[in-house]
């Protein structure tokens, strides 16, 4: 393998180790927010989309890049916002109520 690939592999391995270590005993109520948080992180493909957009030079690539951009941006922005809303409920006392109302009021009966 090329040296670049080898160092990339090293980075990959270390990142996996970090991933394994970083999640410790989490209270069950945090499972969903944590999943949602991780979900936002892989929105990083947005960076990938930007790079292919920059390299695009034909209609096909343009389309692919554009759709990838839309998808990626949705993942990132939506992911972080929804996670933040989930986590509001962990703010103790009445404030928790506000979180609720917002959730309820602005609900289009989805």
């Amino acid at each position, binding site marked *: 393998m090329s040296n670049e690939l080898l160092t990339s592999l090293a980075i990959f391995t270390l990142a*996996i180790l970090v991933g394994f270590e970083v999640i410790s005993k989490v209270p069950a109520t945090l499972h969903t927010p944590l999943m949602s948080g991780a979900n936002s992180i892989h929105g990083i493909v947005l960076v990938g989309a930007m790079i292919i957009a920059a390299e695009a030079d034909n209609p096909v690539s343009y389309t692919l890049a554009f759709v990838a951009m839309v998808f990626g941006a949705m993942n990132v922005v939506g992911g972080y916002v929804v996670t933040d809303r989930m986590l509001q409920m962990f703010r103790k*006392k009445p404030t928790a109520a506000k979180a609720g109302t917002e959730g309820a009021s602005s609900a289009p009966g989805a």
Partner: protein
Amino acid sequence: MSQQWIFTIVYLAWLAGAACFVLGLHRMNSPATARDGNRLSAAGMAVAVVATLVYLITRDGGLSGVALGIIVIGFVIGGGAGLYTARSVKMTAMPQLVSLFNAVGGGAAALVAIDDFIRLNSGAPVDTTIFVVLGALIGSVTFSGSLIAGGKLQGLIAGKPIYVPGGQIVTIAIALVAFLGTVALILGSAGVFALGSTATLGLLFLVVAAGLIFGITMVLPIGGADMPVVISLLNSFTGTAAAMAGFVLGNPVLIISGALVGASGAILTKLMADAMNRSVLNIMVGGFGGGDEAAGAVAGAGGTVREIGADDVAIQLAYAQSVIIVPGYGLAVAQAQHAVRELAELLESKGVDVKYAIHPVAGRMPGHMNVLLAEANVPYPQLKEMDEINPEFDRADVALVIGANDVTNPAARRPGSPVSGMPILDVDHAKSIVVIKRSMGRGYAGIDNELYSNPKTGMLFADAKEGLAALTAAVKAL
């Protein structure tokens, strides 16, 4: 500033972004710091994205107007859509939204891989090909799989397991196609045999198509109740797909973040499965046609049970010292969260001490009850985690069980039942027990609940919302 210097700064920014993701996840392990954690992670993302933009603009060749347009417009549209849905979705509908976001993430990863493949077409060295194909494949599986999962949670698709006749064979066949296609592409690029560039492209699309179908046939046969676990698993897949894209583009932040999510997602999936004592494997095997017939409520006969009317319950409640409310899946189905809060407030106004007992896996997603009750403005301090509340049942006058079943089933204390080993709420320690549910129907685990034949137990057969309304009226009438 020289090219190399700008790149250095960009690279360091990418690294900083990745570090923020790690520290963010770390802080999300505990409720107190979780929110900052998520924001730190978001900040990291912003840094990484801006750095990339700078990099693309400043590198020689620069950024063509079209490309810039694609990036900006694409971001605005996608970001806008994400922002709107995320802010407007009902709290209880969040899991399916997460699933949707996961789907598009996977889709993006697949598209990036495909585009790379088209550009490098046939010119690509073996290792690049491997990563490209894997990225495209995994990306497509998560795309279609997450859409189905979300659809099930949203009720667009029947939540109960769907078995296509011979579905198992189909799934396996598809998997085989995807696998063979991948191998062929790799060997082709390794020059083991010659593949025309059209043949190569054709093969890639075959693999992608197979991936998309596989995602569907894998998730369809899994019961809606297991969706949280499935989504978490697909989430970890998407991470891996992103990492693959990173390898192709030789981009560190993609590799690091992708691998990070891949690994932490896997751990999280296991934690989730453990919490509802299921094994990830037999959940997914369910996906291959086996197991899990249990899921879905089948009407079944219990022992001799005592029915009780709303008025009697109202009296019990009104004159009790302390009442513990045990909400379950049924409360969510009936959307009775506001009704229960009303009743609770009414009782408190009469000086009754009311608490909510939250079982970690009550409902159909972790934290389901917290989200549900938070939406109805139930003050957070009134929600008690299982370990905290269990001792208090001995002192409680009435345990009011609303649409909860398995999480109260004493059978869990004995071996030999599907729920064995799952910690339960000690409802049967309360002086008196009232259960509101529509029938003797079973819960997720599909077994009868001897709690209902307990002499202390009175059954109030009703839809949770109507039952609670009736109770509130009756208490007011006293």
